């Protein structure tokens, strides 16, 4: 069996007078037809390592040690002072090794037809091919990755393609020249679980068909368990553990691997509910309808169609569903950010108007939100102290000590007060966002995918924090999520939404043990699990 990619003792450092080591002594190897999972949290160097293999390191970083060999060609050998030139690398990219990036939304040019973009990927390494032939090949490729009516769809631009379809197009481009090596960097992180399952099926099928090797970079151990033959765990720029996927996950030898596995949301419901009886319900929303006006269309698009939610004080109700199912619109309607076209909202026993602008400040206090994206949630110019102080200042209730208490509540000590968001990690930012949301003592907290942008270990910490705060303050949580694992460990009840309607609502345990609706079953089946079914049989030795 021949080795497609071999990295030995790779070291990557930043440029500059005082270089920081980002990747140190990393070795990995992928054979033909094999699938290697590279797992680690953000900053572990997993992406840098494979980018280095293609000579695509970002500006400001460089390889300072080790060897990189692709298909018996030595691309980098620092000791022997061998450095592949840009020409050699270009000839290699796309032909010998191809990459599928994380974000299918930004990897495609929004102004060009998808088919034309696939055709250019074909022509890069086959310049003699006529445009027409390239276009035909592009359509064949799109058909082969499961794009229906590829000939017609090829002429449309990316905004008319869903996330999953775009990722299929990216894969079509990557396999245009039957590469020996496919590198997929978090290929499904931006996708729904059901779509994720389809894309992973496709990658497995492509691998079977072309016999290429796959390097799957991800933070999701479940995904690796189902989709890789061997596994490399990285942490702080070093390889922690490597071995056959099944063996490593069954009996991890290293402490860090065990911690990663332990941080995965537990496959069980939370033990003691925090529901408080005798207090006003945190939220009673009835028959909520949300419409969006679309320019050029007479009838508005109905995002939420008569949904009712009731959340007791201290209760967590999760709303799950695929993107576009209306779960975020529901949250916005509760907050008034997107006024409901019909229906009533009562927060903490107080009926509030549908439009945010029509609500009094005291009414707005009752429901607060923690945003999904910890990067856009905080004004980059304000210090942590000022960020948390803002709601208090709005209500003219600012008090230095109060801000300190709020920060302490979310586990941030005095030393963080003067920092800017740019100096915080994703988890710390999310803590600041939670402290800000709690500043006005709300009855209901809307959590819009609060942990989906965080690493698993950080996820676990934030979820624990949310649980503690809920018990302390008797908060009701409206928990919007697409991650069923997270939902299982925090929610008391689950509402499953599809096409703007509720298809199933039940206590968490019941949803997971005895799902009624076919869509719920489909969602549950798509979640990657450590002990999930293997997607690929190891191909026979070549």
């Amino acid at each position: 069996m021949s080795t497609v990619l071999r990295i030995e003792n790779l070291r990557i450092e930043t440029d500059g007078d005082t270089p920081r080591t980002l990747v140190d002594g990393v070795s990995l190897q992928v054979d033909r037809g094999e699938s290697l999972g590279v797992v680690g949290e953000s900053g572990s160097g997993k992406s840098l390592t494979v980018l280095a293999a293609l000579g695509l390191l970002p500006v400001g970083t460089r390889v300072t040690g080790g060897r990189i060999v692709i298909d018996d060609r030595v691309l980098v050998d620092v000791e022997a002072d061998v450095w592949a030139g840009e020409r050699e690398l270009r000839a290699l990219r796309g032909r010998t090794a191809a990459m599928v990036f994380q974000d299918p939304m930004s990897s495609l040019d929004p102004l060009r037809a998808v088919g034309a973009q696939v055709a250019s990927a074909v022509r890069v390494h086959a310049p003699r091919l006529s445009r027409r032939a390239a276009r035909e090949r592009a359509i064949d490729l799109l058909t082969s990755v499961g794009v229906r009516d590829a000939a017609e769809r090829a002429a449309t631009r990316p905004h008319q393609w869903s996330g999953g379809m775009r990722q299929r197009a990216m894969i079509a481009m990557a396999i245009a020249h039957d590469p020996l090596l496919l590198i997929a960097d978090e290929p499904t992180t931006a996708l729904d679980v059901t779509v994720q399952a389809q894309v992973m099926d496709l990658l497995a099928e492509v691998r079977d068909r072309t016999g290429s090797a796959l390097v799957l970079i991800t933070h999701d151990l479940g995904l690796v368990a189902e989709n890789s033959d061997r596994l490399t765990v990285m942490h702080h720029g070093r390889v922690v553990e490597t071995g056959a996927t099944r063996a490593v996950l069954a009996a991890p030898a290293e402490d860090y691997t065990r911690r990663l596995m332990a941080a995965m949301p537990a496959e069980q419901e939370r033990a003691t509910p925090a529901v408080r009886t005798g207090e006003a319900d945190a939220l009673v929303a009835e028959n909520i309808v949300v419409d969006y006006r679309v320019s050029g269309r007479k009838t508005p698009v109905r995002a939420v169609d008569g949904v009712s939610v009731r959340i007791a004080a201290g209760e967590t109700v999760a709303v799950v569903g695929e993107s576009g199912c209306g779960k975020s619109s529901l949250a916005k309607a509760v907050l008034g950010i997107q006024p409901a076209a019909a229906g009533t909202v009562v927060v903490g026993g107080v009926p509030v108007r549908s439009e945010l602008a029509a609500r009094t400040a005291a009414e707005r206090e009752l429901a607060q939100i923690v945003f999904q994206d910890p990067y856009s949630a905080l004004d980059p110019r304000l210090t942590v102290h000022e960020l948390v102080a803002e709601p208090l200042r709005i209500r003219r209730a600012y008090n230095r000590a109060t801000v300190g208490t709020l920060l302490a509540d979310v586990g941030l000590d005095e030393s963080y007060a003067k920092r800017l968001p740019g100096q915080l990690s994703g988890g710390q930012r999310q803590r600041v966002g939670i402290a800000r949301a709690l500043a006005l003592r709300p009855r209901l907290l809307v959590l819009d995918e609060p942990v989906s942008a965080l690493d698993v270990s950080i996820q676990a910490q934030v979820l624990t924090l949310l649980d503690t705060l809920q018990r302390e303050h008797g908060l009701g949580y409206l928990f919007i999520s697409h991650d069923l694992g997270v939902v299982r460990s925090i929610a008391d009840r689950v509402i499953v939404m599809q096409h703007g309607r509720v298809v199933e609502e039940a206590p968490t345990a019941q949803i997971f043990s005895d799902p009624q609706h076919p869509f719920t079953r489909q969602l549950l089946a798509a979640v990657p699990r450590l002990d999930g079914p293997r997607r690929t049989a190891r191909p026979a030795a070549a």
Partner: protein
Amino acid sequence: MTTSLTLATAPVVRRWRPRPGAAVGALMLGTVLLLTAIVPLLPGFDPMGQDLRAALRPPFADPAHPLGTDALGRDLLSRLALASAVTLGMTVVIVIMNAVLGSLIGILAGYYGGRLEALITLVSNVTLAMPVVLLLIAICAVLRPSAGLTILVLGCTWWVGYARVTRNIAAALRRQDFVVSPLTQGGDSVWVLTRHIVPNVWPHTLIIAATDVATIVLITSSLEYLGLGVQPPVPSWGSMIFDGQRHLAGDPWLALLPGLVMLLAVGGVQFLSQQFTAETRGGLLRKGGMR
């Protein structure tokens, strides 16, 4: 879903690393500023006083007139100093007027959108289509040309660039969660605009303003050259060059010296503003990178 667009908001000002171009720029502009600041303090400072017996003295010939005299025997060094103060002063006022007006319009258009934005876009396009210099000439044909008039006309017609850029930034900011958050806590639009939008927009305004200074210097000087703007006997770079060009054959320094000062000022500002934009561009690009 985690598809999020990280907006490059306020340029992150990091360690200031001077570029060689910036040092040259600072030196050039510094010379001009020094000229305007020091010369009026010297004993022989007299930009208006005529002395026909001492007319057209060459530079470095007469200790009483270090840079010589013009056709009316007025001290050239004094006149250059006053002209620099006049032209730079006018430029600064015009740039500030446009920056404030344009950013305000752009921010309102971007934040509120809808009909207000459509109206503002229409007004911008009309303004952009207007030939400013011809407009000023037309107005001066009716009213008496003066510095104030030039400032007023230029100060109200050069804002479209600011409005366009700030509109886009404000529109992108409006969709950011940190702008929505204060609204859910009881804040109003004024709060959001003053606390979050303006502070995140103004660094961009500053960048445009820095690059605009040179343009405005050239435009006001061309207008002065045409006799629109500051009226004699008060000197300006443009009017000094106009006066000097009649003596180009015999006494070229009369036109060359104000031209040189203008070159120093415009070049200096350009070099400096490049440092400024390069610095902030680094900040903008840094976001969304690896790690």
